[in-house]
């Protein structure tokens, strides 16, 4: 038997009882540092720290070595955190094939009796988890934060075609089958039916950007179930005032995050090369990030390009999340040259809170989160010539950068954001929750 929390579930109809929230994610920050699991865990910690809430966290672990024989749920971190050792997952339609999971999950739900189950992903637990919640706790509210476009797009949820990697605006069975010709259009039709069957059970969707929200509404999610709210990030530890950007010396351009083709690393390399050719020595690129998770061919390519690069590019290697503020403050602006739509890149939020202007591609979530000419500047996606030109101009006229520094929007107020989430969680006994109960019992 797993060691389950012994917290008694009070009568959830009483207003004074704390609201019980179970946050579900597909991983755990201890195991990986992706945006979703970091945001999920941050939400859990924030809620747990609030006097009027009780919170639990359920994450997943994929490596079988961690599984304790006979028990798929374990608690290696604290008595409010659970880890599910997943066995068998269908990545095409996000189905959890593990025959033990439904029972284990339902038992956990019955133990904890949450008022709200907030999913920050359905990978590893499977989309059927929404149904398990609905059937076990008819009155619970089911919330899902959408992190990328996985439900819509089988290409890692990035809505970029394969193999050309051109931008894609809308899915259809025929077009998806062209990207993946091992699957027929019928397969994509069925995938869509399967995923939507379970998404139908979700009460509330949260999109970190308007852009992502629109994509999902176009795909078929009801607009009335959609709310746009940023992810809650860990609160920065440094409270030192932020230095203004330097007015002379080389312009330091920082790239932060995962080093991959879709994050636009090659656009950076090409722009650097163009500036070198033009003998524009006023720009220096500093790359902070990790390439080790990429396919071998990409890593090979990356290292080859690094070797050929001029003096204006420096590879600084991976960085600890706790150092990101200090690192960002050491550069003049942050470059986000992604060649895919993005949603709400954490790096942009981090740059904003450190008062660093963001230079980014003019599409998707990036263009939404960075107001052109105010929070930073846009350049046409993938266009290294335009990027080089833009950076050149910023070197020539340092006042532009100064002005941007002043006009950057304030950082997201974590406390206010957290309150938004709390308001979103419906009070039990509300009209919406009793309608749900009636439906589940029919």
């Amino acid at each position, binding site marked *: 038997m797993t060691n389950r929390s012994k917290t008694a579930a009070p009568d959830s109809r009483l207003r004074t009882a704390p609201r019980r929230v179970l946050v579900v994610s597909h991983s755990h920050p201890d195991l990986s540092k992706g945006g979703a699991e970091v945001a999920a865990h941050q939400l859990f910690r924030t809620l747990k720290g609030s006097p009027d809430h009780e919170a639990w966290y359920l994450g997943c672990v994929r490596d079988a070595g961690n599984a304790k024989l006979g028990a798929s749920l374990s608690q290696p971190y604290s008595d409010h955190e659970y880890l599910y050792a997943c066995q068998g997952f269908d990545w095409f339609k996000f189905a959890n094939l593990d*025959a033990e999971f439904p029972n284990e999950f339902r038992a956990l739900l019955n133990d904890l009796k949450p008022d709200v189950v907030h999913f920050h992903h359905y990978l590893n637990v499977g989309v059927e988890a929404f149904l398990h919640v609905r*059937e076990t706790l008819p009155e619970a509210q089911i919330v899902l934060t959408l992190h990328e476009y996985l439900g819509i797009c089988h290409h890692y949820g990035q809505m970029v075609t394969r193999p050309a990697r051109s931008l894609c605006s809308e899915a259809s069975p025929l077009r998806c089958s062209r990207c993946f010709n091992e699957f027929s259009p*019928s397969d994509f039709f069925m995938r869509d039916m399967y995923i939507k069957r379970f998404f139908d059970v979700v009460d509330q969707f949260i999109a970190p950007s308007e852009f992502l929200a629109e994509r999902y509404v176009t795909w078929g999610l009801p607009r009335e179930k959609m709310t746009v709210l940023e992810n809650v990030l860990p609160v920065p530890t440094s409270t030192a005032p932020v230095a203004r950007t330097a007015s002379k010396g080389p312009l330091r351009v920082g790239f932060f995050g995962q080093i991959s083709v879709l994050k636009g690393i090659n656009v950076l390399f090409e722009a650097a090369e163009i500036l070198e050719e033009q003998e524009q020595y006023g720009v220096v690129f500093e790359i902070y990030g990790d390439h080790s998770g990429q396919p071998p061919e990409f890593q090979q390519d990356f290292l080859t390009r690094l070797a050929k690069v001029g003096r204006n590019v420096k590879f600084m290697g991976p960085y600890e999340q706790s150092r990101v503020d200090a690192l960002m403050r050491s550069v003049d602006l942050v470059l986000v040259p992604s060649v895919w739509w993005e949603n709400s890149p954490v790096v942009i939020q981090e740059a904003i809170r450190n008062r660093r202007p963001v230079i980014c591609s003019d599409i998707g979530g990036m263009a939404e989160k960075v107001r052109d000419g105010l929070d930073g500047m846009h350049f046409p996606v993938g266009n290294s010539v335009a990027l080089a030109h833009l950076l050149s101009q910023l070197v020539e006229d340092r006042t532009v950068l100064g002005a941007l520094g002043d006009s950057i929007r304030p950082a997201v107020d974590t406390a206010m954001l957290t309150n938004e989430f709390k308001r979103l969680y419906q009070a039990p006994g509300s009209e919406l929750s009793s309608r749900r109960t009636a439906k589940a019992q029919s």
Partner: protein
Amino acid sequence: MSSSSVSIQNDDDRSTDVLLFGEQQLGYVDSYGYNVSLGGWFLIGWTARPFKMDPPATIEVHIEDQRRRVVAESSLIFFERTDLEHTRVGVLLFVPGSSRLFGVLRQFSFTLDEVTYAAKTGLVTPRRESGDILEMARTILLGQALGTENRDQLLALCMRPCFVGHETLNTLSEAILLEVDQAIPCPPHGLLLKGWLLAPMGSIRRLTLRSGGRSGTIDIAKALRIARPDVISAVGAERGYSETHSGFAAYVPDAWSPGDVTYLEIELESGEIAFKPIRISHNSGLSAIREVLDGLKIPDGALDGAFDHTLGPAVATLNAARLAAPASFETLRFGDSVETPIVSVVVPLYGRIDFFEYQMALFSRDPEYARSDLIYVLDDPTKREALLPLANSVYERFRIPFRLLLMRENRGFAPANNVGLSVARAPYVCFMNSDVFPLSGGLLAGLSARLSQDAGIGVIGPRLLFEDGSIQHEGCYFRPLKEFGHWHFIDHHHKGRRPSPASGLKAFEVITGACMLMRRELAVELGGFDERYIVGDFEDSDLCLKLRAKRLRAVVDTELSAYHLERKSQVAPSQSWRMNLTLYNAWVHERRWFMSPTKTTPV
């Protein structure tokens, strides 16, 4: 003279009562052997001499080998032997039949004028080779045998040219080019030959297939002739032949003896005879059917004849043999189904078992499926290992009770559905394809309610839609196709068009078997789907026509819909057998319901 009866103990303790004439001993078998060419056994020895030695044309002989006794018809010939006393006489029997009629000979006996004569083998009695025993028989028949009609006939048989195991076509004065590429056994005794033949017009008098005592003529005039350009370019042209349709397929229904040497005897008008050995294919069941139908492009206008005389009987025989034993299957239960379900849903699974997972996920949207008697039938043993954990996982995920029937071998659409029907228990049964996904809520309740309100409806189905919402099926009609002998094929009304507004029930000649609901007892009465249709084709039409014969209608309820992701079956050139299989099913359907065979006269 007095006679006494003695019980002879045989090796296996069965006793044989033998009437001895005076103090004569039991007779003796000097030699025996099987001749492949004639297709029969020669038994040579001696017995007591009967009063009258004029046996009938055929006489029953009891033969005992090391294990058992068999009874067969034989020709009996007596002959004088100088090495024996006068009370004994030589006997020669010819027993046509299979080389497997018996094993090691122990004794044979026959009864003449109510007296039984027997002969026993000794320790040194040899079994002779095919050629040797024939030579011995010939010598006896020419020399010492008593001149009777039996002797004359058997002698004539033995003096014919003999197949000695190899081809002798090149000994003929005419240039006959003949190859048999495949000889497919159609149990119990049929053989379908495929090959090619080049011969001067009118040169061949008769083609006979011989095998273990059986024989059958091949009527080349009625055989299916197909184009073989490879033959002309390889051998025909250099011999002056320009015949394009040298290929043939011919069916001989009763001439093959399993386990025996099989050969063709070619007799020319000139009287010359040549032989050709035939290698029998090892295929059976569905792969034999495939071998029969593969690589045959039936020429225009030859369709009726091809199926009536050749392919039809061959495939029908193979199919009957393959389905002779009752279907064997294992039943797994997941969850407990309700006490009194209204509808049993039968879904055959083949190939794409993941359809089952998708279907169950969508069934979980509607409580009526958990209240039905769901029966999935796996007609694909190769998928068994993958399906078992999936079924378990699906049950735990969606909690819809169902039964899973695992067939031991692949049998096809009709047998799989019938197996499901055999275990169904609700008053209504719905046959549903695995790639049908309900769109309307309460689909089963709606269909069964309509059915219960109108006793004149035999079968009912919903509208079926493609993924894009256009019509996949809303009733079928017959369309005779000129390119296929004007046989009636089945087309769907409005296929691919946008659906018109729903307008209640519409009756049709045929509705598709992809989703059809009917009273279970009626389905059982009709025998379910007819298993003469192979793999999957026309059986739904057959069912609807049976209903029509009982004055019951087939209707579509346009108010209810489901998706049907009809897979396009690519018929690649290598898949010509699949096309021919569809033609076979169309032929069965056509002959039963539309046009009987036209009389054909030899050209």
